[in-house]
């Protein structure tokens, strides 16, 4: 029997790592991967709670999160390709035109 505290703790650690990656990295592709990692951490929490409560709702939520993640990757990488075509770069420092 795996304690729920440890499942949720692992989820929190992975979420924190994903946050660090999304905030500090300057490579757009790695930033998208970090966001995927954060979504996966949320999925782990959903599955852990679903197991503890013996309910199906958490797993339905996980399916929805997987769909959102797939849609996000398709659109996000489309933006990356359009950006690379215009700027020859996937570094966010090169697309800071709107930054104050």
């Amino acid at each position, binding site marked *: *029997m795996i304690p729920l505290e440890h499942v949720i*703790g692992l989820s929190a650690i992975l979420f924190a790592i994903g946050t660090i990656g999304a*905030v500090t990295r300057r490579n757009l592709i790695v930033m998208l991967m970090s966001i*995927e990692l954060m979504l996966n951490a949320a999925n*782990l929490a959903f599955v852990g709670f679903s197991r503890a*409560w013996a309910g199906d*709702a958490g797993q339905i939520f996980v399916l929805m999160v997987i769909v959102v993640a797939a*849609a996000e990757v398709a659109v996000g990488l489309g933006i990356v390709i359009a950006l690379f075509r215009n700027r020859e770069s996937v570094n966010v420092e090169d697309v800071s035109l709107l930054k104050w």
Partner: protein
Amino acid sequence: MTAPQVLFYGFGALAVVSALSMILNVRNTVAAAMSLVVTMISLGVIYLLLDAFLVAALQIMVYAGAIVVVFLFVVMLLNLRRDAFPPERQLATKAFGVALALGVLGAFLRRMPGVLPTARDLPADFGGYRAVGRALFLEYPLAFEVTSLLLLAAIVGAVVLAKRRLD
């Protein structure tokens, strides 16, 4: 410790290590994507240990199979050189990101003990395609249908964004 616990802690540590190696790898984007695959597969194993069999299969197929492959396709399509990302300088941003993540993590872990539920007994077919499918199609059909709309929007958006010219 029982075998499931050993597997849980082993694959949990593997997931954390490969996630760290993903965000710390500033040179090679393909290696970062491969680290992400290791994290995804470790989480798939953990889902199996938590009796979520259908979710584990989908995790391997969709995340490790489809999403990371799309990442790799884009990295290779753009032909990113290994030295495209020199070591980054903004110490303030890095310190802010790490402080934010550690602050949230610390507050969360400090409040967590004692508020979580204790595990209940599972029904016979918990987490299989039968139970999850019944819940999906009988209890949450609206969410399932709205998902199709989201996917359609994503397909159209990706095609329009990646098109060569907008005319």
